[in-house]
C-alpha cells in the first residue's frame, strides 16, 4: 500500500512523516515536562489554575478573581473555546491542557511553514533533486520558523502567537483566494483569520499582509481592470465574513466607541512620546535583522559574545541563500513578495528608532483614532512577524536545492562505450587511418568528459560541505536561546500545595468570600519556589474574588501600592514618603480600617515572594486575627469588613493617603466605614465631598524662604547644623518653584552619611491633631537628600524622626512635590522640619546640590473633623449579585445625595442604571475603585453593570451562528467538489441512508405483524 502511495503524486507518507518530525521537534522546547511534573508559568503566562476559571475568562467580560476587565479575551474565544471544550471532554488538568496548548500551537507554526515552504520549493522545481528534498527543506524551514528568537519571545506572551503560527498558511490561502476567486477559499481564509486573531496586534498583522499583497498583486498584474475588480471582490468578501465571524469582539469594540469610552488598556494613559521612543530604542536595523529587538531573555544576544556572533547566522545565510537562488527567486511571485515584505517589515519595525520616526510617532500618538488605537503598535518589534517566514522559506529552499543526486564517480564502462566502438567499426568506407583519428578524438573526448565529471563532483562536494556548514551554523545559532527558554520560561513549575490548602480554607467560608493578597505582584515577582522565574499573578487568578486591580499595574498612585508600601519595609521598595517610628506614630489596630476599601474578609500574606519584608506587620496588628497558615502562606481575618457595595456619606479629597491614615486613626470602624477617600476632584460637594485643603491652617515657618535679607544668606526660621565646614546654605533666586527664592544647600563631602542638616523652628503640638507637610525638592549630584519631620519624644526626651517626605533621593532629580500627614501621638510634644542635604554622588561632577522650596506645614482644623462627625448616616444598601458583571442594588431611605461605592477595579465601562434607564458614570475612589455619585433621595433600585458583557453576549450569538453557517457551507462544498474522498463519503451516507430506511421498514413490518397477532 505504501509503495502505491509513494508512487502517487501526493507523497502522503512523506507528509505524515514530516508532520510527525515537526511535532517531535516542537516537543524539544518543552523537554523538561517529560521528566518533571508542573505547570507552565511565567509573568505573561499566568492562567487561572483550573479549566472552569479559564472558561469564565472567555464568557464573562469582567473577571472577579483579580478585578479585571477581560474584554480582550473576546478575541481569543474562537481559538480557546474549542480547545477548552476538548480538554473538558477528555478530563485534562489545567497544567496538562496548557502544556498541550503550547506544544500544539508551537507545532502548528512549524506545520504551517512546512506547507508554505513545500509549496514554494515545489514551484522552484529544482531539477535532479531527490524525491524527499522538498520535504526535508520544508521541515528545516519549519524548524527555523519555530525556533527563531522572535518566535520564542512571542510564544512566551502567547496572546498573539496563534496568528503568527498560521501566518504562512494564511499567506498561501490569500494568494490562492485572489488568484482563483473561489468563495470556499475566501471562507477558509476568513475563518482562519477570525479564529487566530487572538490579540489586537494580530489584526494589524493581517491588515498589513493583505494590504501589501493586494498592492503587490495589482502592480504585477499592471492594474488590469479585471484584476482590480476581482481582487476587490475577494477582499470585500473576506473582510465582511471576517468581521461578522468576529462579532463577539467587534460589537463590544463598536459599543465602546459609540459610548465614547474606547477600549484601551489602562497603561495607555501613561503612553507618551518618551515611552514610545523607549519601546523602539532597541529596534535598530541591526537588531531587527537578527530578530533580537525585543528586551526579553533574548537579550542573550547582547550579553554573550558567542551568542552575539551566532545571532548573525539567520540574516547572513538568508542573504547567502538569496544570492544562490536569485535566478529562481524573481520568477516566483510569492517569494518575491516575501522578499519585499521582509524589507518593509524590517523598516517599519524600527518604529521611532530610524527613518520612519516622524510617521511612526504620528501614527502612534497624533493620527486620527490614535488615542484609541495607537497603543496597538506601541511595540514595533511585533511588526517583524513576517521576517521569520522569509528566513525560514529561503533557507528551506536552499537546503532542498542541495539534495540532488551525486554525479557518478566514473564514466559508464572503462573504455569507449559500445555505441562509439560500433560507430567507428561500421563507418562505411572509412580507412584504417581515419578510424584511428576518430578513435583518438573519442579518447580525447572521454578524457574531457572525465575532467568535466571530476569538476562536477568537486563542485558538488564543495557545495555540500559549504551548505552543511551553513546549516550547522543556522541550527547552532538557535540552540543557546532555545536552551535558555526551555530551562527558564517553558520549564514546568511545581506550585506548592499551600496555595490549594489556603484556597480550600477560603472555599469553606463561601465561594464569594473576598480576599486581599499581599504583596501585590505589580510587574511580577520572584518566589522562593521558582527562583529562576518572574511569576505572574497566578495565585490571584486561582484564588477567590479580590480587588487585586490588575488593571492598574502601572498606576503607582493606586491605594493598593500605598497600602503595600505602608506595611512593607523592604529598602528596595522604599516609598517616596514614609512614616517612621511606627510603634510611636501608628496605633496597632489600623490594618483592618486601612483594608476597608478592599471589601475583603481575609488577608493572605505570601512570604515566599522575594524582596518584600513585611516585618510581621500583620502579626503585630490587633485588628487582624491569624486564622490559618500553611507553609509560606498565612491567612488573617479582617475585623468588620465592608460589603462589596456600600454607601459613603462623606468622600474626602486628600493630597496623599497619609491623610487617610491620619483620619482613620481618630475614629472607629463604624465611622470610617461611612467614608471614602479620593485624590481626584470628580465628586461634587453636593454628594458630601470634603476637600482637606480647605481646612488646613498653615504654620508660619518661612517655608518658601522669602523672608530675610536677600543680600545675605541668613534665612529666618532655618538653622544650618554642620560642624565639618563642608556644608553651606544659600538663598537661591534662580532655581525655585515659586516666589523669588528657594533654599540651596551645597555639600562638598564625599564621605558616606555626611549629611548637611538644616532645621526649622520647633512647633508645640497637641496629641490627636493632624498635621500635613508639603515639600518641594530638587537635587543634583547628591545622595541621601531628603526631608524629615522630627518629633520631640517625651519618653526619650529627644528628637526622633516621625516621617520622611520625601525619603532618601539620589543623583539628579528635578523639582518634585511630596505630601505627607500624620496624627500626633501622646508621646510627641513638639515637631520641626529637618532638611537633609546629601553628600556627593559622583566625585567628577563637582559639589552635591540640594534645593528646597515651598515647605508647608499645616494643621488640619477641628471644623474638618466636626464636618465628618456631623454627616448623616448613609442609606441602607442591600444588593444581589446576578453575575460578576451585574448587581441589583436596593437603596433605602437616602436623605441626601451620596456616593455608592463598588469595590471592583475602576473601569469607565461600569455603569449604574436607575429603573427609568437613567445612567450614572463612575468616578475613581482611592485612585482604583468605582464610586457612583447618586443624587436621588428616598428609596431606589439600581443596577450596577459592566456594559461590555451585554455587547459581548449579542456579538457571541452572531459569531457562533456565522461560524456554524460557514462550516456547513465548507462541508457542503467539500461533498460536492471534494474528489474521491467526498465521493466515498457520499456513497457511505447513501448506504447509511438506505440501511436506515431498510431497517425502519423492517421494524415497521415487524411492529405491524405483532399488532396483527
Amino acid at each position, binding site marked *: 500500500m505504501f509503495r502505491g502511495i509513494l508512487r502517487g503524486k501526493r507523497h502522503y507518507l512523506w507528509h505524515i512523516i514530516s508532520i510527525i518530525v515537526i511535532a517531535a521537534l516542537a516537543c524539544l522546547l518543552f523537554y523538561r515536562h517529560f521528566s518533571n511534573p508542573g505547570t507552565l508559568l511565567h509573568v505573561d503566562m499566568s492562567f487561572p489554575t483550573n479549566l472552569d476559571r479559564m472558561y469564565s475568562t472567555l464568557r464573562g467580560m469582567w473577571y472577579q478573581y483579580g478585578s479585571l476587565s477581560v474584554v480582550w479575551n473576546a478575541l481569543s474565544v474562537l481559538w480557546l473555546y474549542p480547545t477548552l471544550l476538548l480538554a473538558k471532554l477528555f478530563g485534562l488538568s489545567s497544567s496538562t491542557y496548557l502544556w498541550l496548548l503550547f506544544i500544539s500551537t508551537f507545532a502548528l507554526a512549524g506545520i504551517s511553514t512546512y506547507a508554505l515552504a513545500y509549496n514554494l520549493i515545489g514551484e522552484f522545481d529544482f531539477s535532479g533533486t531527490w524525491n524527499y528534498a522538498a520535504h526535508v527543506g520544508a521541515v528545516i524551514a519549519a524548524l527555523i520558523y519555530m525556533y527563531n528568537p522572535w518566535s520564542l519571545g512571542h510564544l512566551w506572551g502567547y496572546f498573539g502567537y496563534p496568528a503568527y503560527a498560521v501566518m504562512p498558511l494564511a499567506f498561501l490561502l490569500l494568494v490562492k483566494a485572489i488568484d482563483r476567486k473561489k468563495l470556499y477559499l475566501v471562507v477558509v481564509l476568513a475563518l482562519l483569520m477570525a479564529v487566530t486573531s487572538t490579540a489586537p496586534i494580530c489584526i494589524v498583522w493581517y491588515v498589513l499582509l493583505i494590504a501589501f499583497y493586494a498592492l503587490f498583486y495589482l502592480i504585477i498584474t499592471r492594474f488590469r481592470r479585471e484584476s482590480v475588480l476581482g481582487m476587490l471582490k475577494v477582499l470585500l468578501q473576506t473582510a465582511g465574513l471576517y468581521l461578522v465571524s468576529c462579532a463577539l469582539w467587534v460589537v463590544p469594540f463598536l459599543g465602546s466607541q459609540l459610548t465614547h469610552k474606547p477600549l484601551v488598556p489602562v497603561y495607555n494613559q501613561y503612553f507618551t512620546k518618551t515611552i514610545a521612543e523607549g519601546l523602539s530604542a532597541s529596534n535598530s536595523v541591526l537588531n531587527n535583522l537578527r530578530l533580537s529587538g525585543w528586551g526579553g531573555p533574548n537579550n542573550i544576544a547582547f550579553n554573550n559574545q558567542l551568542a552575539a556572533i551566532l545571532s*548573525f547566522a539567520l540574516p547572513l545565510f538568508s542573504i547567502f541563500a*538569496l544570492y544562490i537562488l536569485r535566478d529562481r527567486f524573481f520568477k516566483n*511571485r510569492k517569494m518575491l513578495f516575501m522578499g519585499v515584505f521582509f524589507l518593509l517589515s524590517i523598516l517599519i519595525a524600527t518604529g521611532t528608532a530610524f527613518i520612519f520616526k516622524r510617521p511612526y510617532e504620528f501614527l502612534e500618538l497624533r493620527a486620527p483614532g490614535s488615542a484609541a488605537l495607537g497603543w496597538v503598535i506601541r511595540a514595533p518589534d511585533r511588526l517583524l512577524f513576517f521576517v521569520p517566514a522569509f528566513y525560514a522559506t529561503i533557507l528551506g529552499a536552499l537546503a532542498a536545492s542541495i539534495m540532488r543526486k551525486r554525479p557518478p564517480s566514473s564514466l559508464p564502462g572503462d573504455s569507449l562505450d559500445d555505441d562509439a566502438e560500433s560507430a567507428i567499426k561500421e563507418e562505411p568506407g572509412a580507412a584504417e587511418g581515419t578510424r584511428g583519428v576518430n578513435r583518438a578524438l573519442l579518447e580525447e573526448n572521454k578524457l574531457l568528459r572525465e575532467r568535466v565529471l571530476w569538476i562536477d563532483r568537486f563542485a558538488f562536494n564543495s557545495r555540500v560541505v559549504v551548505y552543511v556548514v551553513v546549516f550547522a551554523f543556522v541550527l547552532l545559532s538557535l540552540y543557546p536561546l532555545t536552551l535558555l527558554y526551555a530551562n527558564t520560561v517553558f520549564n514546568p513549575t511545581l506550585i506548592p500545595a499551600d496555595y490549594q490548602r489556603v484556597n480550600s480554607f477560603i472555599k469553606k467560608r463561601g465561594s464569594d468570600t473576598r480576599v486581599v493578597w499581599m504583596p501585590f505582584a505589580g510587574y511580577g515577582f520572584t518566589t522562593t519556589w521558582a527562583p529562576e522565574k518572574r511569576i505572574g499573578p497566578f495565585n490571584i487568578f486561582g484564588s477567590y474574588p479580590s480587588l487585586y486591580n490588575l488593571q492598574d499595574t502601572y498606576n503607582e498612585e493606586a491605594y493598593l501600592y500605598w497600602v503595600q508600601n505602608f506595611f512593607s519595609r523592604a529598602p528596595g521598595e522604599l516609598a517616596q514618603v514614609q512614616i517612621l517610628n511606627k510603634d510611636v506614630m501608628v496605633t496597632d489596630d489600623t490594618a483592618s480600617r486601612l483594608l476597608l476599601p478592599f471589601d475583603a474578609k481575609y488577608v493572605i500574606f505570601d512570604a515566599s515572594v522575594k524582596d518584600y519584608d513585611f516585618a510581621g506587620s500583620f502579626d503585630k496588628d490587633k485588628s487582624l486575627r491569624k486564622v490559618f497558615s500553611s507553609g509560606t502562606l498565612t491567612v488573617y481575618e479582617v475585623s468588620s469588613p465592608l460589603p462589596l457595595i456600600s454607601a459613603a456619606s462623606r468622600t474626602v479629597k486628600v493630597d496623599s493617603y497619609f491623610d487617610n491614615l491620619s483620619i482613620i486613626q481618630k475614629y472607629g470602624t463604624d465611622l470610617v466605614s461611612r467614608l471614602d477617600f479620593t485624590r481626584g476632584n470628580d465628586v461634587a460637594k453636593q454628594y458630601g465631598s470634603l476637600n482637606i485643603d480647605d481646612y488646613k491652617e498653615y504654620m508660619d515657618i518661612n517655608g518658601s524662604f522669602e523672608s530675610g535679607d536677600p543680600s545675605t544668606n541668613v534665612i529666618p526660621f532655618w538653622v544650618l547644623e554642620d560642624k565639618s565646614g563642608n556644608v553651606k546654605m544659600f538663598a537661591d533666586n534662580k532655581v525655585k518653584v515659586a516666589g523669588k527664592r528657594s533654599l540651596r544647600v551645597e555639600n562638598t563631602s564625599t564621605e558616606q552619611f555626611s549629611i548637611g542638616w538644616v532645621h526649622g523652628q520647633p512647633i508645640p503640638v497637641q496629641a490627636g491633631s493632624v498635621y500635613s507637610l508639603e515639600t518641594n525638592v530638587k537635587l543634583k549630584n547628591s545622595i541621601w537628600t531628603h526631608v524629615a519631620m522630627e518629633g520631640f519624644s517625651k519618653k526619650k526626651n529627644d528628637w526622633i524622626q516621625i516621617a520622611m517626605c520625601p525619603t532618601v533621593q539620589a543623583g539628579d532629580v528635578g523639582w518634585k512635590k511630596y505630601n505627607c500627614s500624620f496624627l500626633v501621638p501622646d508621646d510627641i510634644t513638639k515637631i520641626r522640619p529637618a532638611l537633609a542635604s546629601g553628600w556627593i554622588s559622583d566625585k567628577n561632577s563637582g559639589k552635591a546640590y540640594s534645593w528646597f522650596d515651598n515647605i508647608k506645614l499645616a494643621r488640619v482644623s477641628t471644623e474638618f473633623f466636626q464636618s465628618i462627625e456631623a454627616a448623616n448616616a448613609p442609606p441602607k444598601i442591600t444588593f444581589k449579585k446576578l453575575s460578576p458583571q451585574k448587581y441589583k442594588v436596593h437603596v433605602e431611605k437616602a436623605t441626601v445625595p451620596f456616593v455608592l461605592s463598588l469595590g471592583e477595579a475602576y473601569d469607565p465601562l461600569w455603569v449604574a442604571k436607575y429603573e427609568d434607564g437613567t445612567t450614572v458614570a463612575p468616578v475613581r475612589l482611592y485612585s482604583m475603585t468605582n464610586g457612583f455619585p447618586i443624587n436621588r433621595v428616598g428609596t431606589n433600585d439600581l443596577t450596577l453593570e459592566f456594559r461590555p458583557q451585554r455587547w459581548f453576549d449579542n456579538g457571541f450569538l452572531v459569531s457562533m451562528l456565522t461560524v456554524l453557517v460557514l462550516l456547513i457551507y465548507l462541508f457542503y462544498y467539500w461533498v460536492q467538489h471534494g474528489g474521491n474522498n467526498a465521493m466515498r463519503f457520499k456513497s457511505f451516507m447513501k448506504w447509511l441512508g438506505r440501511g436506515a430506511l431498510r431497517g425502519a421498514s423492517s421494524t415497521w413490518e415487524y411492529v405491524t405483524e405483532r399488532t396483527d397477532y
Partner: protein
Amino acid sequence: MDRSSIVRALISLAVFIVLSFFLTVLAAFFTAVLLAVVLFGVDCKFAYLIALLLLMIAALFIVLAATSAAEFFAIWSFYFLAIGVLAQFRDGIVRGTFEDLDS
C-alpha cells in the same frame, strides 16, 4: 545619453528633493539611488554580495563591542539588500509573467 535616461535621472532627482523634506538627507539620498537603480536596471548579484559583506563586517564590529559601527554597516547592508530585492522586483515586472501566477 538618450531622452528616456534623462527622464529617469530627473525622476530620481525629484524624488530625492521631495523626500529630503520628510526624511533625513541620507534616507532621501538612498531612496533616490534605489529608485535610480530600479529605473536603470542592475544585476542584483552585486547588491546581494555587498549586503552579505557589509553584514559580516557588522558582525565583526559586534565582536569588538563597537555597536554603533555595527549598526552603521547593518544599515548599509540593509540598503544593498533592498537594492537587490527591488531590482529583482523590477525584473519580475518587466518580464511580465510569473511561473506561479495562476491567472
